[in-house]
């Protein structure tokens, strides 16, 4: 035996993204998720003979924006094609897609890898319609079809085979997701299927030509993608080592079992006989319209990071997290504009907001706090109307139901008392009740003060300013006075 062969994994992705339009790609049916089966349907999206599809302008707008944001060339004259196949998820017996003249071509996105930055090429982006949902009725042994999803707009982003491992694949997907979320073109949730990634993978010996690839479907999380890549690489290498050939096929990943199997569903013959759809008119894109789209592009993370460093005195780590979601970045910027205290705003978002998102199992995109309420909460703490612990309680209520902080604090009795007499009485009582701590503090045990502050706070039912208590305690303790009389 010679030395062991070195295999390189070659990966390209086909990413389907469900666009955040109100209506379907070719008809006025709602795209709202979760409706009763078949209640968002019409003759167009159920493929009735004689129905006429008409392109949703928002789909074109989103597709072009994603293309511009990923450095693609925009096809000025594009058309739709029919991809013919028989399967009950598509009652037309063809999917309207784009083969010959896709809307975007030849772009790239930059990803961070452990060896530095890398460009992942985008071969093309095309617009197409989603298919209906099949529900298998085990009891009756039949299949039920819901066409609510039929005709929901998708873009398919086809990468070049530029990735070499799972880390690069995840970095690429995260980058795409961030760009698309910043554009507001989709929420890109893998678990919910609004972003779906099919992995095309082959292996080759170092320096050799590309091997035969397989396509892996049903990958619903980054974890599943990582495991599927490792599993498929191994399966292909085993085949090659055993002197067998890799068959070009579509495989379905079973995340529970941790393995994949060849799909036999959609086709006996993978011959789609594409041809231009005669029902849809070609789309010609004018320079003026394209310029409008370019002007409407938002500030993306890369530019935001540079600006944040110049504009706000906050750590790079904060900048990275805050700009990691458009909603978060917007909340940060707008709140800072209102209160002028970037570090305090950042602290709330990096600390409490992140903690609550994690606790509630939410994403940064789900955050519903309004800038004016957060600015008000910060102002309340600045004016010493509310202490830190109470402010966190108010923040949590704002996080869950976007309450008005002043009214909420008032109603819940969280505002600090300004009755200095009451506070003085409480402080004196605490000193009287805790001679041991008094002695400890005077004997040099700095920590004892914390206990005394805590006791006073308790006596005040949490509605006092700890800094003020601290000051009063220190002043009283600085003399020789006895408190136990």
């Amino acid at each position: 035996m010679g030395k062991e062969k070195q295999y390189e994994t070659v990966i390209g992705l086909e990413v389907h993204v469900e666009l955040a339009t109100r209506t379907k790609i070719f008809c006025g049916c709602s795209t709202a998720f979760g409706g009763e089966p078949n209640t968002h349907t019409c003759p167009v999206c159920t493929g009735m003979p004689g129905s006429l599809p008409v392109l949703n302008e928002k789909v074109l707008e989103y597709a072009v924006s994603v293309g511009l944001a990923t450095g693609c060339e925009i096809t000025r004259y594009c058309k739709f094609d029919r991809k013919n196949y028989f399967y009950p998820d598509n009652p037309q017996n063809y999917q309207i897609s784009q083969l010959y003249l896709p809307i975007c071509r030849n772009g790239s996105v930059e990803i961070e890898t452990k060896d530095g930055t890398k460009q992942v090429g985008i071969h093309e982006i095309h617009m197409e319609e989603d298919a209906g949902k099949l529900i298998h009725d085990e009891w009756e042994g039949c299949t039920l079809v819901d066409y609510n999803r039929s005709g929901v707009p998708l873009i398919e982003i086809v990468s070049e085979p530029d990735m070499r491992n799972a880390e690069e694949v995840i970095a690429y997907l995260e980058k795409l997701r961030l760009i698309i979320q910043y554009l507001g073109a989709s929420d890109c949730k893998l678990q919910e299927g609004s972003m779906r990634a099919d992995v095309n993978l082959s292996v080759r010996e170092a320096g050799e030509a590309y091997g035969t690839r397989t396509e892996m479907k049903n990958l619903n999380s980054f974890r599943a993608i990582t495991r599927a890549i490792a599993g498929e690489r191994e399966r292909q290498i085993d085949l090659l080592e055993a002197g067998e050939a890799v068959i070009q096929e579509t495989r379905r990943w079973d995340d529970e079992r941790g393995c994949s199997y060849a799909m036999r569903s959609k086709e006996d013959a993978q011959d789609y006989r594409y041809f231009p759809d005669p029902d849809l008119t070609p789309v010609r894109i004018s320079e003026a319209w394209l310029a409008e789209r370019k002007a409407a592009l938002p500030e993306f993370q890369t530019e935001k990071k540079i600006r944040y460093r110049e504009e706000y005195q906050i750590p790079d780590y904060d900048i990275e997290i805050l700009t990691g979601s458009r909603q978060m970045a917007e909340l940060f910027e707008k709140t800072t504009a209102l209160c002028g205290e970037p570090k305090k705003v950042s602290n709330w978002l990096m600390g409490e907001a992140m903690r609550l998102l994690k606790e509630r199992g939410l994403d940064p995109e789900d955050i519903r706090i309004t800038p004016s309420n957060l600015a008000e909460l910060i102002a309340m703490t600045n004016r010493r109307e509310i202490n830190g612990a109470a402010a966190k309680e108010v923040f949590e209520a704002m996080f869950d139901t976007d309450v008005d902080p002043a009214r909420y604090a008032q109603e819940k009795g969280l505002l600090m008392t300004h009755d200095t007499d009451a506070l003085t009485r409480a402080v004196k009582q605490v000193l009287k009740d805790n001679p041991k701590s008094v002695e400890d503090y005077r004997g040099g045990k700095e920590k004892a003060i914390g206990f005394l502050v805590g006791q006073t706070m308790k006596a005040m039912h949490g509605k006092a300013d700890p800094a003020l208590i601290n000051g009063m305690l220190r002043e009283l303790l600085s003399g020789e006075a006895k408190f136990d009389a």
Partner: protein
Amino acid sequence: MANIISEETIEYVGILAKLELSDEEKKQARKDMARMLDYIDQLNELDTEGVEPMSHVFSVENVLRRDVVTGGDMRDALLANAPEEKDGMFVVPRTFE
């Protein structure tokens, strides 16, 4: 006829179109298809150098609609066409996963 369509080709085209043809129909289909290809050959005699393939007869472009919900719930009307329905859904023979 210059073109000859093999039995395998007709079989394959039949599978793609989900058609079950009798032997008699296959024979006829082979003849028809050969004649069609002969006609295509005739068209190919024309010099089409530099001529874009035409996919649309009318020169209409950019027919778009605004992203506004116009479709209502047409479930009952659509299901009325279904051979079988259950729980508001179309029933089809069991598909493989």
